[in-house]
């Protein structure tokens, strides 16, 4: 790969994990991944494989053990919080969000990095908020309070907030947990269409391996300390998916490109 290829996000010699005083727990090492604009990318792996660790390291929530993360060829450690907030927006789970916020208030908080010290929304801010609401299709929820929403609706509101932040990269941690099958597919479909129409790069960690294989441009597979990136087809050809789960219970079916349970 030449330097000429412009990546939205790439890593070099990245090792991720947790550092204590005398102990270093490496979750994965030698990570080389590259994301481009307009792509929908799923980070998949079994429980405890290190999906979240990777997501957190990419978004500078935790520091890597070794190596660098670059966004638009800038090392993220050279960026302060403010600059980073113009490049990455997050959708997280299990955060202590004040549920009495109105939907439009929560989405408006996405404009926080751009507003003045009293948080005044300019015409541009209002336009971006309106656009985000339309893209996610939640106009009818605008004036509701967040505690009146279902899990699926609330997830869309959080995605709209990230869109309002207007960053080239959106990172989502498990955006489909607690959702039923229909809403899981709906959220992923939404993310895919947003990636296509806005040219943003959308990265999400998920357990929904079957859905991810069908809907994403790129897959980042986190498995036993190794991280492999490729298109779904490439991963199938490399036969790396076969060992993901113990084969006596769950097997990978190449023809349908999906996992099934042995009965």
């Amino acid at each position, binding site marked *: 790969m030449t330097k000429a290829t412009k990546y939205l996000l790439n890593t070099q010699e990245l090792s991720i994990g947790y550092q204590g005083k005398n102990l270093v727990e490496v979750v994965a090492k030698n990570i080389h991944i590259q994301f481009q604009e307009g792509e929908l990318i799923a980070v998949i792996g079994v429980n405890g494989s290190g999906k979240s660790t990777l997501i957190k390291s990419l978004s500078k*929530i935790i520091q890597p053990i070794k190596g660098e993360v670059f966004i638009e060829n800038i090392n993220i450690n050279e960026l302060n919080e403010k600059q980073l907030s113009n490049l990455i927006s997050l959708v997280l789970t299990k955060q202590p969000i004040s549920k009495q916020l109105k939907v439009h208030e929560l989405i408006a908080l*996405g404009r926080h990095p751009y507003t003045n010290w009293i948080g005044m929304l300019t015409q541009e801010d209002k336009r971006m908020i309106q656009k985000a609401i339309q893209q996610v299709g939640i106009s009818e929820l605008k004036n509701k309070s967040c505690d009146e929403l279902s899990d699926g609706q609330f997830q869309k509101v959080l995605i709209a907030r990230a869109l309002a932040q207007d960053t080239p990269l959106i990172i989502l941690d498990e955006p489909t947990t607690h959702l039923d099958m229909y809403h899981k597919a709906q959220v992923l479909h939404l993310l895919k269409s947003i990636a296509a129409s806005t040219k943003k790069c959308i990265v999400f960690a998920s357990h929904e391996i079957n859905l991810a294989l069908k809907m994403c441009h790129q897959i980042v597979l986190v498995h036993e300390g190794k991280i492999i990136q490729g298109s779904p087809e490439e991963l199938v050809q490399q036969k790396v998916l076969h060992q993901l789960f113990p084969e006596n219970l769950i097997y990978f079916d190449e023809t349908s490109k999906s996992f099934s349970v042995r009965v």
Partner: protein
Amino acid sequence: MKKTLPYLLLSLLLVVSFVTNISLGSVSIPLKDVLLQLVAISSEVEHFNYIITNYRLPKAITAILVGSGLGISGLLMQTLFRNPLAGPYVLGLSSGASLGVALLILGAGMFTSVLGGMIYSSWATVIAASLGSFLVLLLVMLMANKVKDTMSLLIIGLMLASLTSAVVGILAYFSPASNLQTYVFWSFGSLGNLQWNEVGILMASLFAGGLIALACLKNMNALLLGEKYAASLGVNIEKNRKLIILATSLLAGSITAFAGPIAFIGLAVPHIVRQFFKTNNHFVLFPCVILSGAILMLICDIVAQLPGYDFTLPINAITSVFGAPLVIWLLVRKKKMYF
């Protein structure tokens, strides 16, 4: 128009309770004279003039400062810790002040005469209280540097509070009854002990604390999403946390130093305002908490001074007697807590 109406109403209520507060007291002064005094700075009756300028006006202004200052510090703490039970004193500020004053009053009793003469000087109490809260604040700030987790800081504040109150308890156990009474009277809180120059100092430090709080409001709105989201929105979490702690210390610390550990107002006012205005936007809450805190404190002071009688009730008892049912009523009536 719809947006400015609540502010106008609150301001009007503030003026009414301010004038009422000044016109009531052990000496009855006709409303006409009070208004004359407030507008023309002189009344026809000489001793009315004296009472108002030297007693009632500084007390009413102290009530306003105490109410708004404690309300704001309660709001800051509730948002910082995302906890509806937090108040201005969760970081142990009042316990620090109590320890300082206890050491002065009770400790002096134990080691007799040397400090004995100072006990009744109000400045000694103010300095002891300030030193006490400042030392606790220093300790909390040191911990804040070490501990990355905001919730641990809340527990540390509570631990420091019980530690200091234990020391106060030991001091009290060995103290003669007269000193104990002096200390207990201080701990009841008092709005009426301030001279004009003290009111000036209190006002200056509350202004400083208020300015810092004002600068934090935008980031406090981001904190409504939790610290991780706030960080992703460009908020420097640690710097913001320190600013909020500093503002609270300036506000609640100086109030405790001058007026004693006044309970309840700091916890209750933000809740009352949220129930009425149904918002979590700090740019709305901030002015409303200032106005409502001042109004509530003025009303509590009116009740405490028992119009027509010669003595006043402890302000600390009144704030709770008056405020607790109000908060309970608001919560029961709305069925849902707004936080």
